[in-house]
């Protein structure tokens, strides 16, 4: 740069910038491999944790609510309304509103609250529907065999509800993976949202955005595949029928 000239933005980053980073290609593999262990892998691991906590907590809450609603039908309508209400709040507003509540700081707990809240509607509905769709004859047979209510639930109703439950888990997990990228707006350093936001902030070099975004999509697809596998393992009778 000539002395005294206008300040020209430095397109390629630092002097250590990689060749393809300077060339500003659509996707720079060298950047990807050199930032994998330092940036992307930790972010991916954090993202998995973020999603895992949200889905496990959401599943536990929904299971309790659904079991209640299965036993006492009155519970269903209020729970459906409340979870639909939570589901309706746009993510950005949800995250930001929590910041106004005293005691909730910019941390992982604040980030988890909306993520858990969004899973409830789908999980609750699917668990409850699964339990309700168990045929009456099957329940009668279970009672005729002398099973207690608890035994019926654990050995008959829950296994038969498994496809619906896992279907709910798949939807909840996949959408939580996508939503968790927004958690970065509350917890500035957590998950794949961080490299995504950094990539948005970089006006010229978009590899970071594309890489982190692609990782989020791949993570969602992988998690979905794992749940399909889990369903096959947990419902062996369905396979037997198919063959």
């Amino acid at each position, binding site marked *: 740069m000539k002395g005294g000239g206008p300040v020209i933005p430095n397109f390629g980053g630092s002097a250590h910038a990689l060749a393809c980073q300077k060339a500003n290609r659509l996707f720079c593999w060298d950047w990807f491999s050199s930032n994998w262990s330092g940036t992307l892998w930790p972010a991916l691991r954090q993202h998995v944790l973020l999603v895992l906590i949200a889905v496990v907590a959401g599943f536990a809450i929904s299971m309790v609510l659904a079991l209640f609603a299965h036993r006492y039908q009155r519970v269903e309508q209020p729970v459906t309304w409340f979870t639909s209400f939570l589901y309706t709040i746009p993510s*950005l*507003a949800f995250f*930001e509103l929590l*910041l*106004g*509540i005293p005691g909730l700081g910019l941390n992982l707990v604040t980030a988890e609250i909306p993520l858990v809240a969004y899973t409830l509607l789908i999980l609750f509905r699917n668990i409850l529907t699964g339990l309700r769709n168990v045929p009456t004859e099957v329940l009668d047979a279970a009672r005729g065999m002398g099973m207690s209510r608890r035994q019926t639930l654990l050995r008959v109703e829950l296994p038969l509800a498994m496809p619906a439950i896992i279907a709910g888990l798949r*939807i909840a997990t996949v959408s939580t993976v*996508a939503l968790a990228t927004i958690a970065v707006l509350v917890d*500035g350093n957590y998950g794949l949202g961080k490299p995504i936001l950094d990539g*948005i902030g970089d006006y010229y070099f978009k590899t970071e955005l594309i890489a982190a975004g692609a990782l989020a999509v791949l993570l969602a697809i992988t998690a979905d595949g794992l749940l399909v596998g889990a369903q096959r393992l947990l419902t062996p009778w369905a396979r037997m029928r198919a063959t």
Partner: protein
Amino acid sequence: MGTDAGYVGNAMNSFVDAVKFIFRNGQIPGQPHFTTLTYYALGTVKITVFAMGISLVIALPLGVWLGHRHRGSFVAINLGNIGRALPSLVVLAVASAFLGIGLNEVLVALVVLAVPPIITNAYVGIDEVDPDLVDAARGMGMTGLQVLRQVEMPLAVPLLMAGVRTATLFVISTTTLAAYAGYGDSLGEVVNNEAGYHLSGVLGAAICIAAMAIVIEVVLALVQRALTPEPLRRAEQLALPDEQFVPAIEAV
């Protein structure tokens, strides 16, 4: 973005301040007719209406037609799965990075996000109409189009509308996120600008976004009720909450 830890300390009164902000927010330069929140709220509604209009024109006929012909189930259903996996922030950012920052570019991103749930739900809704009913309708001499309009569509209203409602929520929530990808004409602009509007403004705008989403959801629920044929409405009370998600899911 809320990154100043100091705000957390004096957050006791922040909701009171936020409500004050909602009723007394100034004007932005060059917009003498509206207050700030009204201006951005109108911007949010405008882009939501545009995006949903375009998405409905593209997705609804496609999903309904595929369902009517019982074709393309793999594509129609997996489209919904893929759509769900796309992080909205990434779609917005990619659109603005490669297309530019403006109304049209944001609309592209919104349509990409809104089309999959509409197609999938429309497909499943029509596809899963009881085949006996369709046979009976044909036996009565109805043409394909009559079957579609008088039998399949009315019965599929709950799922058709479930798709539309999901897509609308997606669009509203993404429109506000667009501020982070550089598009400044929605309520997200206020949320994104804590330096300018303070925490009270951010919370006030967030409350407005949430309220708007809930109002729109309620309106769509009423539309769904109005579109549902009279005899189905009473049955709907019991069946709908279950049916809305499960058929789509079991078909996955």
